[in-house]
């Protein structure tokens, strides 16, 4: 008994309180900080997401390669051979593949993360942990697919005899920005879905439209000049175009559109987090 007591970490430190929800910035910040205690949970959940996804499937992890490659081939046939889309001098296949990497990451993680609360309703009514870990874990799991997609890019570059410059490192902050954008959006959408399941039904359609509003299958430069100012208000436009510039053209991203993306995310993240925490207090009563 004595030993058990000595083993325990210095217990009964500062008292915590549980009280009716309050949304002062300091409380939100401390909750955000508490998220670090759940790093192990995030890691475990994300690992399991990846494991579960390909369990009992014949091809397993090969799907992560097969999916983007087949889409690349389809888009190349439609938009390059049939529709004669301009591709800024690069082979169309690689032109569209490079843009599909960030876009698929965005679409796939947003879809699964927005669904994460509803799909874990039994968990949410039984045990508490900061529930934003759920959308986050989908984000991490989708990042793995993104990394696999990047690995596939290497043989493609060799095949098309293309090179990269140091500017390729821009991909890291660009993808971090995309991840923060998905996280913010998914916290809002996942919360709304707890109340109205319409989100899950509308999202695939919305993402389809959104893809065609982003420079994925066509270059940003193909957008008429007078629309471009509006066009880059879509944060994904700046991100997708930025990734293509630094990977394909060895240039730095367009800082004007990137600034808009960054500003949007910086504004959205605290709003989304506050909204999420506000609704979290009563989510289990509704779900």
């Amino acid at each position, binding site marked *: 008994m004595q030993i058990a007591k000595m083993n325990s*970490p210095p217990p009964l430190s500062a008292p915590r309180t549980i009280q009716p*929800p309050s949304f002062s910035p300091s409380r939100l910040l401390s909750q955000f900080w508490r998220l670090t205690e759940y790093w192990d*949970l995030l890691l475990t959940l994300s690992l399991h997401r990846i494991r579960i996804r390909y369990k009992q499937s014949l091809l397993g992890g090969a799907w992560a390669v097969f999916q983007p490659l087949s889409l690349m081939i389809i888009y190349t046939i439609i938009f390059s051979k049939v529709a004669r889309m301009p591709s800024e001098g690069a082979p169309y296949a690689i032109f569209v593949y490079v843009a599909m990497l960030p876009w698929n990451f965005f679409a796939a993680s947003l879809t699964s993360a927005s669904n994460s609360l509803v799909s874990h309703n039994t968990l949410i009514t039984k*045990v508490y942990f900061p529930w934003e870990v759920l959308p986050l874990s989908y984000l991490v799991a989708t990042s793995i697919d993104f990394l696999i997609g990047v690995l596939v890019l290497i043989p493609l570059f060799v095949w098309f005899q293309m090179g990269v410059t140091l500017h390729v490192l821009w991909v890291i902050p660009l993808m971090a920005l995309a991840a923060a954008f998905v996280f913010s959006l998914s916290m809002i959408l996942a919360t709304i879905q707890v109340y109205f399941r319409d989100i899950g039904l509308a999202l695939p359609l919305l993402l389809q439209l959104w893809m065609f509003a982003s420079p994925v299958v066509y270059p940003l430069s193909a957008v008429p000049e007078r629309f471009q100012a509006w066009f880059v208000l879509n944060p994904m436009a700046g991100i997708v175009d930025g990734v293509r510039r630094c990977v394909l053209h060895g240039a730095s991203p367009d800082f004007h559109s990137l600034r808009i993306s960054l500003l949007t995310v910086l504004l959205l993240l605290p709003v989304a987090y506050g909204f999420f925490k506000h609704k979290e207090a*009563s989510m289990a009563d509704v779900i």
Partner: protein
Amino acid sequence: MSTSILEFKGVAKRYTLRQESAPVNGLLARLRSKPVEYFWALRDINFSVQAGQALGIIGHNGAGKSTLLKILSGITSPTEGIISLRGRMAGLLEVGSGFHPELTGRENIFLSGTILGMRRSEIHRKLEEIVDFAEIRPFIDIPVKRYSSGMYVRLGFSIAVHQQLDILLLDEVLAVGDHAFQRKCIERVQVLKNSGVTILFISHDLKAVEQTCARVLLLDKGRIIYDGLPSEAIQAYQRSRGSHFGVRRTQGPPPVEVQRVAFLTEQNQHTDHGTTGEPLHVELLFHAHAPMDNLAFHLLFYGPDGNLATDLNTRTELLSVPEGTAAIRFVCDPLCLPLGLYQVDTIIERVGASDPVEHVLGCAHLPVLSPQPVQGSFQQPCSWRLEQQ
């Protein structure tokens, strides 16, 4: 500084009752602000717990037990009041919550453990202990969807009680597995308690509460109506249920109608409880609106765990009843049921008909007291003698 590890001050929880509407009208109905109804699941809850104490919380369904635990574990927030607590707390509202059927036992230990707030390093350290306690070593690397329900709950419980914590919340979780495992669970809780862990134990299982806790709160309609010794609380709990008549399940007026179920002693005195090992008479009063034949009468006793404990019936001989009121007396000599509160349902069936003639849930409630604790599921009457060989 007070020595309490956990303190509730004026905690209350209000739920909003909304009318469910068809999905198409859902949004419209919500926009057209209808008068909302409120329901207070908890009111004015004040208590504090000392470190190392085991506190039992009992009450009838809907008394607010689970709401209290949900607030404490952070699943839902209180409407009023404040709770202060120190140290690490983990709750187990349902064993095996957070298990994923496709993952193996080992993977689920990590999943469920981290959901409960454990570090991966801590789980690595405790893995062997968890597996041994759950008695699932040969199955540790197969998916839990292939587990028996017993293995499932054993693993769930084992994870929960092997973490380093200061406050442990248990909701009905000891009512799992077979008797041997239940005893093991209670022993484990005892060990945790002795090592200074504070335990909040919510249960319908009065026996387990009495064995585990030195102090019991009795909740009724969201308020604490008793706070003190387990034996007193359990008696108050059993009294508070009275003998109000239950819910009729049959459609339309039954041709043979149950009017009352009463409990009597051997001396024909009405009684409000039974005692294990002593005789008890149960009287079923009914009114037949027309003569009827081929009838069988059942009194179903449901135990504290919600399972059917016994079925007293007249099936050995089919009965014909004339029009009018009559009673059937069942003589239990002795009563074999162990300590607990039993709900009595009545079914009158006509042999050959698919639906019962009469079916009433909760006609009566029978508290059973046991002067000596009953080991196992019931007290088998037996005599014994010593024989020299």
